[in-house]
């Protein structure tokens, strides 16, 4: 099931972008996919994509250049955080690094071995041991940092420590592999270890120093390489999380009741190692709380969520989101659980912080009224697709899509003198598991017409309801044959010609009250049955009406040349 499909928008720095739609239309899923709290199956989320790179990306996508895919991937690798190919590192690159290890092996073991051929005595052991330590370090450092491991900032240190262990195990493993080196003696791991340390303790000591240095350095080099080629992934995503934050919907559920306000707000600071010094943490927490309007902060830090009112809780949520000084905040219905009189204060606070800290918001809401006062630009979603997109004025004051028009018409007006004609849509949004064909909105659309995607099932259902109302005399069986045709069977003794004529008349009479009948293209008798063929349909593409303003509806004509529709 696709909860969200084909959604594309860009949020400019310092902007408030609103995603509007009914519940279950995929707003929250989109918001979470942006922060990679859920992984998108395909598509990209670009962060801080330079305009010229974006333009190049668009050109590459539109054009048919032979190397477009590779060049798009290069951009995606660098800026997209839904780039998921990080685990499949280039085989060539892996071979390169393994080659480097082989070279290290030759240097580490081969050279001392060569030397051993010339210089007899104790030096041989020293050379072998140092070579082994170098080998252990490099092998661990490189292999441990290559994909598919998911690197973190701690990886080199961990690998360095592991290499000490590996180096100490090396003689034992060697003895296991070549028992001939210790002829006759029973295998005794601690014994071998003690013998090796006893025999060449100076070399072993040197090895203990060399191995972690080699491992750490190799790991750092490989990771630096990965960071370059894999862009935002792996190492960087974690640091990026600091700059992207989420404010949750329900302040009563999203705060841990066992944590005090101080713990809630300081947790991101501690987790992300922004501050270690308790005093510094306290100062940062106090600053976030005061920025979020909880003044004086000292009065709130030791309270628990149950000691706060709803508005104060939401302020704590905001303070926790602000603690890391993010650039981009996804606010998922931040005021829907709050009382009206408090709501405005929270919104005002969010807008003030935008000025003060240069924040960018993605605001998710079902309330068009809120979108109207807050948003610079709005995207209206329906069943996982954007149906209309544009500036607040374009979308709210001059809506083009019938869904947007209906949504706006039902927003209750606080002024009883301004009663507007409301367009109340029938039914509820369809299940995302079973998405209507063609335009997803057509079953509920008040102005749906021929091309919108009426399926045989819908037409058959409408005909059945006519028939059960006694409007189709002589017809006893209505059946959707395949996706494009409906078969009607007649009662015995009824001529197909007469029945088809009645049907034609009934269909043309009821086309405007029963919109599904608009999907009927042809009625023709075939033997003892009537065959109803359906109109061909197309899914409306998102038609660009102007810069940033787009609508997905067949009723909207593109400004200049016709955009080819995607035919199913």
């Amino acid at each position, binding site marked *: 099931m696709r909860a969200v499909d084909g959604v594309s928008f860009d949020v400019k720095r310092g902007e408030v972008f609103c995603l509007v739609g009914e519940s279950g239309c995929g707003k929250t899923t989109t918001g979470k996919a942006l922060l990679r709290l859920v992984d998108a199956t395909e598509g990209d989320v670009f962060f801080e994509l330079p305009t010229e790179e974006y333009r190049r990306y668009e050109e590459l996508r539109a054009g048919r250049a032979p190397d477009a895919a590779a060049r798009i991937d290069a951009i995606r690798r660098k800026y997209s955080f839904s780039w998921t190919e990080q685990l499949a590192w280039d085989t060539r690159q892996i071979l390169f690094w393994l080659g480097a290890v082989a070279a290290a092996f030759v240097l580490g073991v081969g050279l001392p071995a060569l030397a051993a051929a010339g210089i007899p005595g104790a030096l041989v052991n020293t050379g072998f041991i140092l070579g082994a330590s170098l080998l252990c370090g490099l092998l661990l450092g490189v292999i441990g940092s290559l994909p598919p491991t998911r690197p973190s900032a701690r990886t080199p240190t961990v690998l360095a420590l592991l290499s000490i262990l590996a180096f100490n195990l090396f003689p034992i493993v060697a003895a296991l592999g070549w028992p001939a080196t210790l002829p006759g003696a029973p295998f005794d791991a601690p014994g071998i270890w003690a013998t090796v340390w006893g025999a060449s303790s100076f070399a072993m000591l040197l090895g203990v120093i060399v191995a972690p240095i080699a491992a750490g350095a190799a790991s750092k080099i490989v990771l630096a390489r990965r960071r370059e080629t894999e862009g935002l992934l792996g190492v960087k995503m974690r640091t990026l999380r600091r700059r992207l934050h989420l404010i949750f919907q329900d302040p009563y559920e999203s705060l841990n009741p066992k944590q005090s306000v101080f713990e809630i707000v300081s947790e991101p600071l501690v987790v992300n190692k922004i501050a270690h010094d308790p005093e510094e943490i306290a100062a940062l927490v106090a600053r976030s709380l005061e920025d979020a309007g909880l003044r004086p902060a000292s009065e709130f830090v030791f309270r628990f969520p149950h000691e706060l*009112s709803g508005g104060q809780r939401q302020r704590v949520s905001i303070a926790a989101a602000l603690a890391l000084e993010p650039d981009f905040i996804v606010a998922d219905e931040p005021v829907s659980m709050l009382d009206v009189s408090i709501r405005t*204060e929270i919104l005002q606070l969010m807008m003030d912080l935008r000025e003060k800290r240069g924040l960018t918001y993605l605001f998710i809401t079902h309330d068009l009224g*809120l979108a109207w006062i807050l948003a610079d630009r709005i995207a209206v979603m329906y069943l996982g697709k954007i149906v209309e997109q544009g500036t607040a004025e374009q979308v709210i004051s001059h809506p083009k899509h019938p869904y947007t028009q*209906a949504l706006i018409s039902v*927003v*209750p007006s606080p002024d009883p*003198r301004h009663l507007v004609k409301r367009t109340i849509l029938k039914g509820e949004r369809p299940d995302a598991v079973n998405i209507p064909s063609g335009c997803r909105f057509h079953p509920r659309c008040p102005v749906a017409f021929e091309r919108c995607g009426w399926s045989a099932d819908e037409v058959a259902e409408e005909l059945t309801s006519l028939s059960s109302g006694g409007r189709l005399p002589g017809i006893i069986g209505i059946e959707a044959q395949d996706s494009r045709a409906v078969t009607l069977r007649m009662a015995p003794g009824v001529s197909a010609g007469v029945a088809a004529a009645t049907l034609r008349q009934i269909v043309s009479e009821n086309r405007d009250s029963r919109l599904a009948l608009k999907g009927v293209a042809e009625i023709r008798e075939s033997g003892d049955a009537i065959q109803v063929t359906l109109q061909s349909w197309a899914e409306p593409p998102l038609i660009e009406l102007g810069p940033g303003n787009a609508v997905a509806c067949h009723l909207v004509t593109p400004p200049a040349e016709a955009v080819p529709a995607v035919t199913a």
Partner: protein
Amino acid sequence: MHAVDGVSFDLDEGEALGLAGESGCGKTTTALSLMRLLPYNGKIVSGSILFRGRDLVKVSDLRIRKIRWKEISIIFQGAMNSLNPVRNIGQQIAEPIILHEKVDEDEATNRVGELLELVGINRDRRRDFPHEFSGGMRQRVMIAMALACNPKIVIADEPVTALDVMIQAQILELLERLRKELHLSMILISHDLSVMAETCEKVAIMYGGKMMEVGKTVDVFTDPKHPYTQGLVAAFPDIRGQRTMPASIPGDVPSLINPPSGCVFHPRCKFAFDRCTAAEPALAEVTPGRRAACFLYPGVPEVTPRPMTVEAR
């Protein structure tokens, strides 16, 4: 603690009254008191509920049972949680019918079918369980249940909260239609003033367990008298109006355990003066047909302090 205090309103036949206010201001408590459904730790200390010449506070438990649901019914808040998940909705709607009307099961089933069709659900779905319905549909079931015994008054407690705007419009349209068709009186409880603007003839604004203003909806919205009402009306964004941030009312809802002295709203009121902290204004007529509890209007009397009643649990 007085959760609700000094609340007084009247409801004519076929009229819709909106009861508005922030959460915790006593809207639901008022509604439950009307049906004498307060939980064991709540009690109506004083006052009267006059229904067709009878005081519901004084009638016996046996009598009130006859009145509940048959005369006054309620659409409980939170349709998601108010239905019994292990019984199908037909049984749940039939229950009050069988209890109150002394009819046999067939007739009750028949009536359930009628009720479901009345609220726009196919009658064949009566065997379905609550989880098989969407939020809007469950709300319709709750409405059908409230209408089961042809009541005179229906109390709708936050009927559209937590529903999508489109479903919200559908439910409000349904309530409006039913009210006209069945000549119901309705008390619509909501925190959302804009819901009332389109459905109710009268509104009562509550704050901190007290009534702040009562009057005709159009008047209250266009010319609010009480500062709290003024704040509330200004706090709503109007999609058909200017793109400006609506005004806010600074501060928080007062605690009812330790209410502020004098007028409950004075700590958040921008017009508060010394009299507001000292005495409590009573609900009095400020203009014809309009009552408000605010000292800004001459002639608003003070509430005579009541001796503190101590209740033993």
